[in-house]
């Protein structure tokens, strides 16, 4: 059953680590990583689970910051007695490089100029994100992660971990994700980026903190938000009400809802980061078909792949491609397509079935 015990009050920490070499040859130095940890690292350092966040997520995966009304984004699954049981595991969550929630990104100060990088921050990839996480893991002295786990963009990171560091990942959990973006997924991201770039305040990314491309970013979020829900959820939540027929304002409840989501997003997210991170998503590719099975031929983890029936952003066929490629390589893999109504966001929501599957998968691997 779903356990609702919270890990309690937590704090996001930031660590400064030696420079991170990126895939494109550039170096981010110093490399700051924002992270949170829950539970205790055991003596042999063999009980760590790395949780990877999705596009607009952050290091705050569980528990509450002082004064918070809502807990971290995966609080349903991280805590004492929960699927990622903090009595057993040491759970680590980081903010990705290129992000804007504490890790090095366009908002960070470039030591060479003493000004924010903005659009001069180097291009980052999913590989760079996990290399940054690896710096933190090495800082903790962890030789092998008990598990890497993530949904959506977090799922891509988990997959990439298993490919880049096969000896460092014992268990790999990939939820609502893909081995590469389809043209449709790139298309949605492109609309978002174009909305930001069309904002008069964008200024080729060199906008000031007082004059940000808020409208563009909020439209990008509106498009994104549509893809996270399902037709059924939107119909139940908003239907067609209330059509007022005013050409200057939004007519429908769903419109007001999206505008609210967009406007509140600009308070917590940076437009340049949105461009960097969505580009990292679009560029990520382990291939499809034979190419994908070739990419996955070196992995050494056990895999759990989860897809959700109502997810039209990352449809289950993309998860099945990963499963098929793993099976071709005789890699042990469990795949479940959970029957849900909530669309792509399903992996974030409470579900007894998801808890059972995560727990079952993790419990059958021994902590050394």
């Amino acid at each position, binding site marked *: 059953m779903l356990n609702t015990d919270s890990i309690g009050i937590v704090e996001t920490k930031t660590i400064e680590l030696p420079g991170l070499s990126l895939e494109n040859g550039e170096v981010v130095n110093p490399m700051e990583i924002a992270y949170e940890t829950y539970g205790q690292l055991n003596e042999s350092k063999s009980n760590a689970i790395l949780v990877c966040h999705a596009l607009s997520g952050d290091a705050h995966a569980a528990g509450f910051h002082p004064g918070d009304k809502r807990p971290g984004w995966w609080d349903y699954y991280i805590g004492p007695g929960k699927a990622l049981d903090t009595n057993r595991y040491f759970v680590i969550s980081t903010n990705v490089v290129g992000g804007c929630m504490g890790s090095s990104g366009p908002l960070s100060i470039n030591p060479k100029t003493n000004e924010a990088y903005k659009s001069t921050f180097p291009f980052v990839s999913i590989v760079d994100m996990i290399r940054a996480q690896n710096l933190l893991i090495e800082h903790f002295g962890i030789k092998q992660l008990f598990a890497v786990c993530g949904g959506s963009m977090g799922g891509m990171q988990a997959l990439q971990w298993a490919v880049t560091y096969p000896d460092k990942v014992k268990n790999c959990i990939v939820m609502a994700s893909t081995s590469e973006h389809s043209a449709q997924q790139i298309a949605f991201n492109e609309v978002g980026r174009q909305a930001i770039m069309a904002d008069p305040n964008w200024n080729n990314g060199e906008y000031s903190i007082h004059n940000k491309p808020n409208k563009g970013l909020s439209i990008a979020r509106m498009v994104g938000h549509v893809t996270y829900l399902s037709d059924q959820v939107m119909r139940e939540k908003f239907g067609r009400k209330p059509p007022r027929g005013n050409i200057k304002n939004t007519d429908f409840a769903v419109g007001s809802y999206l505008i609210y989501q967009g406007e509140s997003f600009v308070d917590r997210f940076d437009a340049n980061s949105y461009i960097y991170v969505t580009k990292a998503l679009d560029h990520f590719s382990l291939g499809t078909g034979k190419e994908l099975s070739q990419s996955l031929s070196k992995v050494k983890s*056990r895999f759990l792949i989860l897809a959700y029936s109502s997810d039209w952003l990352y449809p289950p066929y993309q998860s099945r491609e990963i499963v098929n490629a793993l099976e071709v390589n005789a890699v042990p893999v469990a*795949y479940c397509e959970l029957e849900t109504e909530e669309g792509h966001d399903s992996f974030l929501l409470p579900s007894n079935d998801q808890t059972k599957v995560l727990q079952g998968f993790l419990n*059958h691997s021994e902590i050394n």
Partner: protein
Amino acid sequence: MLGNIYKNRPDFRFIENLIEPGERILDLGCGNGELMEILRKKGVRCQGIERDENCVISCVEKGLYVHHGDIDRGLTHHLDKSFDYVILNQTIQQTLNPGKIIRETLRIGKKVIIAFPNFGHWKIRYTILRDGQTPVTPLMPYHWYDTPNLHFLSNLDFKSFCEYENIRITGTAFFRKDKQIKIIPNLICDLSLYIIQD
């Protein structure tokens, strides 16, 4: 727990004795994973496919590797002869296109184990003759309108299929309730098991 499974499932015991530790099997329509659990204890490397969500969840809870899917949608990604055994245990009668699936299992498995409820059993023949109705039996406990079974076959049907398709039958076992039987199987066994190769 396992004792009970054995008692009702002599086919499980037969398959367990057949497959060696270290061999790799694919169990198509693996249900709750009971057979894979028995085989795993013996050191067999198991992968399953199952279309029912609750069964899949139950397999993952057991720590089994199961692929949530429908075997009618294809096994094409599996390489030739990549499994020592492919198992179709009371699955084949529920698939849309059994002939195609059997040929596909022979491609990806060195050997294939097929077990199915024998429709040639005398009680079934008698019931049809007496009542003129589709029989409901312990191994086929459904009515025509709610059964997952799309095909009904007997030992003779399966043998003639193999002859027609040039498939070699390299082993057989016939069961009545919890016992294995040797004589006039098409008349008295309720569960038939064949090991085939191409």
